């Protein structure tokens, strides 16, 4: 399933964020968006999910314009792991994951045994079965993030959009979530994500898209795209990109900012 964006203009009714953006996302890849705060990552994602109307251009899935799809069909194709999640009600983790089945079950129906099985499988895939009866508002940020990813899995879509899945997490939880993303990618799901940390793109991304002021300033493999020059242009700071050999004998790259 190929999602493509054609000459897209996106933003809010009274405020345009980006113009003339085109790119295609290959099936099975992990595409990571990098860019400073306010560059339009979240707005672009919301437009892809049709939560915001495309102001110009269009978005296609397998060459079909999704502009007129019913919301349910969009939700059966694309799932969304939102950025910061304000929890209002003390639902259990299982109840939250089950909500991922909303696009699949009848209007007046409640989840069936099959839906419970699918939700359980999603918890299992992310190794958080033990959280099943935990109250969503009482678990840690990392656990919540994994719960939302499990919900996207229960939605059973070929494409998952994750808005800064590692934001506001401590180091251990970041690794946990990155591992989960890797596992999802291995199972054949296409992932579109954003991150504040270029290192995370090195860890999980097959391609990187750099976004600044709503424009695409770079697109390609992490090794080729994440460079001293591109990071300087993107974030306006001096960074060294260092390559080293790990114990496991595969090359890894990290970004080391220069601090006076």
């Amino acid at each position, binding site marked *: 399933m190929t999602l493509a964006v054609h000459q897209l203009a996106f933003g809010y009714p009274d405020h345009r964020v980006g113009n003339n953006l085109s790119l295609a996302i290959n099936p099975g890849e992990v595409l990571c968006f990098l860019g400073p705060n306010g560059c339009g990552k979240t707005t672009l994602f919301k437009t892809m999910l049709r939560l915001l109307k495309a102001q110009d251009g269009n978005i296609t899935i397998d060459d079909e314009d999704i502009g007129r799809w019913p919301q349910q069909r969009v939700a059966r194709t694309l799932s969304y792991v939102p950025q910061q999640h304000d929890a209002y009600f*003390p639902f259990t983790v299982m*109840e939250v994951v089950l909500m991922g089945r909303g696009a699949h079950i009848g209007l007046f129906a*409640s989840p069936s045994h099959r839906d419970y099985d699918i939700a359980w499988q999603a918890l299992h895939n992310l190794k958080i079965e033990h959280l099943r009866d935990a109250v969503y508002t009482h678990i840690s940020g990392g656990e919540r993030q994994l719960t939302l990813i499990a919900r996207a899995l229960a*939605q059973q879509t070929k494409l998952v959009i994750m808005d800064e899945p590692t934001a506001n997490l401590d180091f251990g939880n970041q690794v946990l979530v990155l591992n989960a993303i890797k596992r999802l990618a291995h199972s054949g799901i296409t992932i579109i994500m954003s991150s504040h940390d270029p290192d995370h793109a090195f860890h999980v991304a097959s391609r990187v898209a750099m976004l600044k002021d709503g424009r695409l300033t770079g697109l390609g493999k992490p090794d080729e795209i994440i460079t001293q020059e591109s990071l300087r242009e993107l974030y306006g700071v001096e960074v060294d990109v260092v390559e080293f050999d790990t114990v496991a004998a595969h090359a890894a790259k990290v970004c080391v900012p220069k601090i006076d």
Partner: protein
Amino acid sequence: MLLVALVVLSIMVGKFDVSFRDLITVLWARLWGASHDLPPVIDTVIFQIRMPRVAAALVVGAALSAAGATYQSLFRNPLASPDILGVSAGAGLGAVLGIALALPVGAIQMMAFVFGLATVFAVYLISRAVRGHDPILVLVLAGVVMGALAGACISLLKYLADPYDELPAITFWLLGSLNAVSREEVMVTLIIVAVGMIPLGLLRWRMNIMSLGDEEARALGVNTGLMQLLFIGAATLITAAAVSISGVIGWVGLMIPHIARLLVGPDFSRLLPMSMLLGAAYLLCIDDIARTFAEIEIPLGILTALLGAPFFLWLLARSKRGWQ
């Protein structure tokens, strides 16, 4: 079980005490169409006065609690109550207008019902007209504004009202009472409330997704515009029906869903029936107190606040799994 016991007790207590044996005798006779040798006044008290009133308390309590639970889930707001979109204020204005025009009781109730619905409809139209903001926020703000407008009109009418005749009636209505409820009125209200409950019952699981907020619900494949319309329409209908026979009874719709959530969690499939059950029982108790505690009847709105508020505070202070 508790509710059944409460109902029996409520039929027995009041200005005219009915013993349990008399009650059974009368019911038994009514059931088999036989006659009994008790004074006919007992028949009148039970069937004409107590039963409609008990039924009204049950229906109004359940209706207000169901509407409160709906609005709290839909608006993700712990302060949401059945009258958040101005239905009570609108109904109040209708009733006060009816009293000021010296209309008969039935017409006053009709005015309250129509004005309540019209107010929420106006709020909904305003929220459609204002674009580019969070739709729920605009809706709630419009509700507050329309409520304030209706409140101002009520104050004006009270100011102009005849202080010996109309003003007490207006004040009494605005504080809520089940004093003058007839059997027919209860039946009509029951039917309207039942109709309003249909979408709430059928869409009970969808409500969970709606309570995540507009954007997330849409990302999960829900047609949020349609859902909002259905939920608001249903909750408004049942609130207007309840308010038009009982007057404005505060606190029930705000407090009862909270307590129900403490007991069964936020899943609307369980929250809705539990809220209705608790609401019915609570208002029945309150009404019993209102008509037995003192020589004159105490308006229900005063009691629900006097008893409800401290209890609610106590509950909040010691609960772990409520709102957050």
